């Protein structure tokens, strides 16, 4: 059981978290833009998250919190 939380308004859509996720569950939310004007990163299939925190470690903007 693990969960990642994105502080979406800090996200700049650089996609480094998308690339680094071993479960390939981090996606860019094409359906919305944040207050910086970017499509933010998000996770929909949260049940697949293993809480490895790779996304958070790779994120240059400290957008992501991880719970396990």
């Amino acid at each position, binding site marked *: 059981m693990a969960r990642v939380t994105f502080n979406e308004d800090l996200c700049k859509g650089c996609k480094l978290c998308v690339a680094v996720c071993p479960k390939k569950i981090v996606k860019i939310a094409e359906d919305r833009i944040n207050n910086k004007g970017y499509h933010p990163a998000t996770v929909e299939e949260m049940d697949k998250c293993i809480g490895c925190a790779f996304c958070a470690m790779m994120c*240059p903007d400290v957008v992501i919190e991880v*719970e396990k």
Partner: protein
Amino acid sequence: MKKVFKRPESLTDKPMHYCPGCTHGIVHRLVAEALDELNIRQDTIGVAPVGCAVFAYDYFNCDMQEAAHGRAPAVATGIKRVHPDKVVFTYQGDGDLASIGAAEIVHAANRGEKITAIFINNAIYGMTGGQMAPTTLLDQVTATSPYGRKAETEGYPIRISEMLSTLEGAAYIERVSVHDIKHINHAKKAIRKAFEYQLQGRGFTMVEVLSTCPTNWGLTPLESLKWLKDNMIPYYPLGVKREVE
């Protein structure tokens, strides 16, 4: 469930101004995590540079001073001599540290100033729009080396860590990278070790961090990580350059 990863206390809440995918943010976080882990945030004074990280004083949640271009090691020297019991670090880019501030970093290291320099090497001037840095690789195209850097006219890229490692005053110098998780984890250990060395009063410490500049390299953030790995690491080999036991 408990939080296994959250924003370190040593970072303020201020959103960082860096371009998407720029690894400055990763290094900021690593420095902040090291300060948290060593529980020294309240005893630390940072010095911000001129360049992309000029606003670092807004991001590090400790006392900070903003220095003139290249002068951070001299400013840090002044602070450390007044507060020898505090931890003092500089955060500098390659234009700041390796070009205009070359004298300051060499002599701070040579005096064995008990400060820690976090040196961001991304082979380019970012803030001013992608000009050639002393660390720009041969044949690398920049705004001021439009035909690629040539050794005959612009000289060779400077390996600062190797150069400083010849100085007796330097206690610990390591070059690390942040292009993947494994290297990010190692970079964190190196930064923490540099602070520990400073706490032990061993001498000058520096961690050179190979970083990306997607905007001025003209690559996506992901391509930039690969470019760093394929082009920078072969010329700037990772590892400990000096360590005094």
